[in-house]
């Protein structure tokens, strides 16, 4: 079982302009932190080709940085962009998901839709067989055996 996330936004520019601003490293640096009151750390690199990577590193200080690396899977300028995204937080945990973005002409501007899929939601079966529970069943069995002996 996995969970999906979906967001949409109407933007006042053509799909070509939005696609360009979204994927251009220099433009990204401008809009990514345009709303920040205090300048934090923002590093952006883009290699816009299938198999290429886009990396964004940002955060308030060097010891609280988030990093997102997207690998381009499909580039259909200026309509669609598919990437595999690996996010990692300051605590060292990572999560890999698929991001599909579409840029559709709408109402004189562009409707940008982001669908991020594949957030793992463990089922009860995984709950018992996942990392935390490795060996748990053996230990329960040992416990039960010990208990019945007593």
């Amino acid at each position: 079982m996995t969970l999906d996330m979906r967001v949409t936004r109407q933007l006042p520019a053509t799909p070509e302009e939005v696609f360009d601003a979204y994927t251009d490293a220099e433009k990204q640096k401008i809009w990514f932190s345009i709303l920040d009151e205090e300048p934090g750390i923002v590093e952006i690199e883009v290699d816009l080709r299938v198999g290429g990577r886009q990396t964004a590193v940002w955060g308030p200080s060097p010891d609280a940085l988030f990093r997102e690396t997207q690998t381009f899977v499909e580039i259909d300028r200026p309509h669609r962009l598919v990437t595999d995204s690996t996010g990692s937080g300051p605590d060292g945990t990572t999560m890999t998901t698929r991001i599909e973005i579409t840029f559709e002409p709408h109402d004189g501007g562009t409707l940008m839709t982001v669908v991020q899929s594949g957030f793992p939601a463990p089922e009860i079966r995984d709950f018992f067989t996942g990392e935390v529970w490795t060996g748990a069943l053996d230990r329960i069995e040992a416990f039960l055996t010990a208990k019945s002996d007593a």
Partner: protein
Amino acid sequence: MVNHMVQQAALDRVFSSLADPVRREVLIRLGEGPATVGQLAEPAGMSLTGMKKHLRVLEEAGLIVTEKVGRARECRLAPAPLDDAMNWISFYQRLWARRLDGLDVYFTLRKGNGDHDA
């Protein structure tokens, strides 16, 4: 060392709570979604009082959480494993809000400047 002993004590509680078939059935049932004490007691052929005793054991082991909803008590699996996924989703929601807000302001400002120049 103390941590280790605390962990052991927590594990012991988990294992002893899982040692009962009724409690294992409850966990599997809650894997499908939350349920009230009554909904859990009925298929097990138990009284509410009997089921509540089992639920207290599971709750003390940290395997389930219970919450009073109206006149019933609702039980669900402890959220620990789901928390990870939800944390990441809320992280990405903030990231995308930041990106889309940024793009919106970027184009709005540019359009404003463009109109001004023209």
